[in-house]
């Protein structure tokens, strides 16, 4: 009964927040200091065109009517047409999101694979010089502006060393020689599934720089958190007794301590996913990465307000939706925590 009550309450609040979010989004688009209709037609529009489009877009109606009209469209999956590309915003978002996700996942994977061991090593040698180096460099990673780091590594790895491609998601030639067959829209996965190894190598190389730039922040964060968690776990009684029993140090660290320290680290990873979403804006701009971040920046600069509304709504809805599902799942698994 309490589960059901919780579920209903949680759904209700999410619904209310969603309505609030949609109102804020809509209000944002209406404070644009420019006539939306004029923006829609573009430069060199004639007054009579602007008037016509104003009528078509319903801009002559009261603001509440406009809002209801917009929400009606949104509920039918219609976010309007982008001013810049003249195509449905929904299509633009769904077409670009996979590229952003692939970048995000690769960066997170890198962050875990690098950050966790760094944290463990740091904890193992707590207070020694290894620890100092890892701690310092992890703070370096967290303090580096992504839009600057990106430029630096481009100069080093493309310009000076010539090891890695400059920008983009895949080499231009590939589409004529080894076209990628789309299955999941994650190029790495698709090329593996189709055994398209030449394309795989190309895609992987293109991912390296942007993924590392994006990963700099989470690597530092995860290393720091893993270290803290490890140190705490290693001070606990069962680890001490394991040592007293004479178990090998390595076994204690990797089998016992890490297993128990991984929980708090996972929390950080989750939080970092959220942050990386925003870091992706700059990384995509610098690497000309064809994802949602690049589109967002273009839309913001051109006041492509239907696109801005669509993206903001999409982002916020995603956030709310995920939180809702996580909360509900958590309540199912461990009712004591959530239901109180």
């Amino acid at each position: 009964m309490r589960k059901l009550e919780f579920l209903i309450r949680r759904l209700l609040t999410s619904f209310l927040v969603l309505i609030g979010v949609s109102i804020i989004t809509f209000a944002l688009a209406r404070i644009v200091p420019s006539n939306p209709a004029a923006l829609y037609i573009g430069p060199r529009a004639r007054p009579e065109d602007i008037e016509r489009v104003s009528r078509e877009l319903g801009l002559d109606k009261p603001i509440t009517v406009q809002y209801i009209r917009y929400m009606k469209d949104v509920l039918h999956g219609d976010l309007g047409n982008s001013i810049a590309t003249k195509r449905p915003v929904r299509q633009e978002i769904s077409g670009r999101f996979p590229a952003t996700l692939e970048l995000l996942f690769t960066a997170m994977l890198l962050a875990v694979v690098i950050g966790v061991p760094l944290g463990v090593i740091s904890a193992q040698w707590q207070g020694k010089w290894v620890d100092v180096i890892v701690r310092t460099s992890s703070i370096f990673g967290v303090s580096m502006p992504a839009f600057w780091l990106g430029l630096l590594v481009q100069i080093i790895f493309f310009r000076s060393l010539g090891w890695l491609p400059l920008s983009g998601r895949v080499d231009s030639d590939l589409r004529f020689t080894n076209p990628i067959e789309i299955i999941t829209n994650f190029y790495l996965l698709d090329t593996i599934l189709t055994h398209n190894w030449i394309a795989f190598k190309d895609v992987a190389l293109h991912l390296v720089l942007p993924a590392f730039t994006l990963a700099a922040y989470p690597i530092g964060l995860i290393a720091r958190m893993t270290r803290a968690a490890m140190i705490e776990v290693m001070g606990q009684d069962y680890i001490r007794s394991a040592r007293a029993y004479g178990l090998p140090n390595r076994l204690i660290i990797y089998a016992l301590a890490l297993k128990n320290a991984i929980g708090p680290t996972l929390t950080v990873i989750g939080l970092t996913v959220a942050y990386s979403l925003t870091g992706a804006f700059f990384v995509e701009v610098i690497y000309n990465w064809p994802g949602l971040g690049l589109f967002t920046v273009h839309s913001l600069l051109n006041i492509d307000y239907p696109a801005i509304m669509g993206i903001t709504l999409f982002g916020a809805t995603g956030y709310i939706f995920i939180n809702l599902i996580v909360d509900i799942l958590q309540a199912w698994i461990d009712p004591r925590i959530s239901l109180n």
Partner: protein
Amino acid sequence: MKHYKWYFLIIVLMALSVLLSACGKAETPTAAPPPTKEAQVAAPTEVSEAVTETEAPTEVSEVVETEAPVVPHVLKVANTANITTWDPVKSFSTEAAYMANIYEQLLRINPPDSAEQFTPLLAERWESNDDGTEWTFYLRKGVKFHDGEPMNADAVKASLEAAADHAGASFIWWALDHVEAIDDYTVKIYMTASSPVDLIASSLYGAWIISPKALQAATEDENYFEAGVDGGTGPFTIESYIPDQEIVLTRFDDYWGGWQDGQFDKVLIKIVPEAVTQQQMLEGGEVDLVTRIPQENYDDFRNKPDYDVIVEPSFFNYVGFFNTLRAPLDNTKVRQALSYAIPYDDIIKIGAYGLGTQSRGPVPAGVWPWSPDVKQYTYDLDKARELLAEAGFPDGGFTIKLTYASENATEEAFAPLIKDSFAQIGVDVEIEPMLFSQQWELSKSDPPNAQDMFLLLYWPTYSDAGSDNLWSMFHSSEYPFFNLSYWNNPEFDALVDDAIGLTVTDPQTSQEKYVEAMNLLVDEAPGVFFLDTQAIFIVPKYIHGFKYNLNYPFVHHFYYELTSEQ
């Protein structure tokens, strides 16, 4: 137990992304089977299903490739020009760079000093009556649109009527009376006033000949073209298009001009706004041609034996409008003083990276009716101070508000140079960058309270800067459009009106009147004429056939003219 939350978050994210990818995929139109490649070793059966269209789920793929395992001959280009619309009627912006390779006009105007003024495209020959009000075009036979429709008099009539009705540049047809299809391959154009229809019909905007089927589709669905569909007769057709990213053009096999060895099968265009990125792509061999690199670095290429660096005049110019409705800019002496206080050389050197020449009036060099007899201001601060004193502002002492389009990096560079120079004669400048659309809206909505100075990059819609630049920017009108100095001078109006009427019948008198009008303009100084820009091109030696056409500076390259060894 808190970490569960984030563990789930990740799972949910993954599930969501797979879901999204699936949605994305469902929206993808299926394409024809692609070329396979011998390089693909493993699993040939799976590969054969691979599709040429990739990233966005919205591309349109019209190619039908043969099964032959041939790598196409591809030209790779990095271009800054983005697509504001694929609609050939509405098109009035940077996409012209590609439109000119997909669509054709009746004729194309040649660069100045060519043997012939025009190259016939869809019209083989043409003639007009004496006063330039009736023009007859005899069309090329056997030309097909990309969608298979025949190109004929009806198609031309429909295209021109659509252009006059709702083109982005419909005003170029303001004097159009009607179009008559005499027979299948003869079209007669009736004008209400004497007009250079040969020039108008070769315009880069509002003069494309479009398949009637596509035109019809566009009337039913306003966004019909936007997915990357075309209905032209040109040598190339759109294979795929990813907004802000890339365009792939593929050759139209039935092109009336035919195809030769060495010409390109496909053109891959990367849309790259960053000049430095374009340079890196060029040097890294990722592309064959670029449209813009940082000016500081052109010299690097001048010294390389593998490249030609070509500098040519273009038909863009930069103009600054003074608000003549407001004190103290309503005073001619003040405007003249400010015109003397513009650091022309610095603006060209720093603002335009040295790629330009000081303007003579609002007509760019090389474009009709430009003339070396038009006067220029020099940079002379003493003279400026003197004029200000005469006007009653011995130490300046007023502030002017200057607006420019924030998306234009050159104007962004002008602004501080003007500010610093004006400061030396005691005039304070308040710089206000805005989006062009906002800047323009402000200037048109309430002129007396709008900006004091408006920076504008201008170009004639077709190769007649008399009826365009002079008329559009400085002829009086009831509502401001591009005449953003709100200037009203009956003498100037009369001279320009006369000159326009004489363009076809008596070019010499017409030009004399234009020169008189321009000198009047320079004297009265309702605006500042900064510079005519120059275009610069880097062409690798292995690309042959590059020809620059001043009349189409937006079209960096006509891909059909280019060849290379395969």
